[in-house]
């Protein structure tokens, strides 16, 4: 008995130590970027920054925010995220609602079709050509229209509608002379608020984080979203030179206001990373339980 209690204690202690390290490793990169973004660039280049800013400055943020391109990119991202999330919820749930009704003609065939597109994709290039022929390349709506419908979310919603909305409630609306539109707005929507919240959050995060669309389907820099702006800053050499040239321009214009020594391309980059993830960091603590619920809804089998 005594021995097993001892074993229990040492298990608890080592487990706590391991998980503390684990949690620390998950969080430290965020902290590291934060202190780099708040430190003077030249000084940061000397290295050995781990815990606190050594030479504190807000100039990285000032320089970054004085670049009109990033403000524009921020608004493009906000716009696409808001329109895309609501649009996707509406379109996807309408399809899910229709397919959840047993009286829908050709329901079986339609479900098979949707199952097929869930498992099988045509590939990137046909998708690209399709966007081209639809005139969506280099168009703001390329951020919205292709993501309006999600098969995966559709199946999750369909299952939920079938399982959680009592048939007799729907029947009674119909007996009162209400059509499907009425059923959708008065029964399905109010019944599914938590589901919509969870799926909407995932959609929003996905749209906010997407740099791919902006990088490959859009060449107009005025239409690039924030993550794509960051990607151009980080990846190819020529593009990062371009950005660094533009931020150097910004720096030269600002020299009267800011200490030019304080800012390097890298330190401004850190501030850009912070801004890119800031909205998510802000909402995360409040919405975390919805996220967890959302992933579990998605994993329930039919």
């Amino acid at each position: 008995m005594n021995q097993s209690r001892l074993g229990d204690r040492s298990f608890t202690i080592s487990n706590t130590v391991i998980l503390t390290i684990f949690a620390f490793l998950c969080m430290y990169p965020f902290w590291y970027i934060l202190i780099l973004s708040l430190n003077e660039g030249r000084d940061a280049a000397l290295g050995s920054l781990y815990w606190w800013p050594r030479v504190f400055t807000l100039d990285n943020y000032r320089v970054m925010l004085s670049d009109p391109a990033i403000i524009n990119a921020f608004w493009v991202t906000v716009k696409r995220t808001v329109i895309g999330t609501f649009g996707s919820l509406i379109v996807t749930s309408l399809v899910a609602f229709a397919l959840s009704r047993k009286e829908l003609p050709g329901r079986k065939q339609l479900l098979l079709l949707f199952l097929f597109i869930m498992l099988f994709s045509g590939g990137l290039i046909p998708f690209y050509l399709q966007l081209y022929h639809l005139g969506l390349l280099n168009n703001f709506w390329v951020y919205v229209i292709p993501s309006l419908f999600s098969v995966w979310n559709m199946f999750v919603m369909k299952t939920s509608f079938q399982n959680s909305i009592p048939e007799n409630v729907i029947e009674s609306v119909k007996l009162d002379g209400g059509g499907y539109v009425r059923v959708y707005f008065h029964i399905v929507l109010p019944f599914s608020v938590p589901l919509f919240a969870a799926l909407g959050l995932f959609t929003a995060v996905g749209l906010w984080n997407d740099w791919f669309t902006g990088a490959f389907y859009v060449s107009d820099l005025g239409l690039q979203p924030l993550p794509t702006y960051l990607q151009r800053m980080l990846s190819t050499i020529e593009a990062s030179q371009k950005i660094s040239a533009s931020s150097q321009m910004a720096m030269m214009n600002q020299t009267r206001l800011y200490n030019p020594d304080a800012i390097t391309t890298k330190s401004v980059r850190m501030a850009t990373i912070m801004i890119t993830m800031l909205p998510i960091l802000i909402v995360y603590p409040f919405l975390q339980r919805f996220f967890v619920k959302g992933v579990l809804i998605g994993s329930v089998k039919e």
Partner: protein
Amino acid sequence: MGLQNFKEFVASQDFWKATANTFLLTFLRLLFVFPTTLIAALLINEVRARRFKRVVQSFSYLPHFVSWIVVVGFLDAFLSIDGGAANSLLGLFGIEPIPFMGSEEWFRPIFILSSMWKEVGWGTILYLAAISGINPALYEAAVMDGAGRFAQMRYITLPSILPIISVVLILTVPGLLSVGADQIYAMINPANIGVAEVIDTYVLRLGIGQAQYSQTTAIGLVMSVISTILLLLTNKLSKRFGGDGLW
């Protein structure tokens, strides 16, 4: 026309190199991420202090919500030669700065570590949910039989979540053909392209970059067919061996 496009890419050396890189990277990712996630879930489940458990969970889910491009930004900052924390630490031991991001030999470890950082915590959710559904009477009975914490984990928790484990494994199989262009594209540079080029980035480069539409469409089609077949096959196998299928 006809099968010309298929013949062309099959004859291309770059294609086979990208294929080999893809399999190696996705296999390594599975090898490291899958068991780590399972172990992390088992350990988190054993925490009795509620607050601590919540903090660990909140912290470990967070990386899932940042864009891959932000992760690459982290890597770039952390591993850079000019003042990155990794090189300053190594400097303390008198090691010359290593250009991690621009080297072939460091690419795979960086790829695996960043995949682990982003997905291990989040992956625990499914397992933890499955564990919370286990009948407590099983544990009580085990304690009566003198089972310690490890024995309970080994003989009750693990077998009880086996169905979920098999579903997770099935779901990773079709992904063996795709590393995810958004993860890798931003990490590729001329210095590491030999080990970093995968099918997804090859298709991007050739298709969108050089307008080789027919050939890259052929590649995409073959990949889609193979991954669908793989999914159907593993699903069947898993059912045959008494595990859970996807449908």
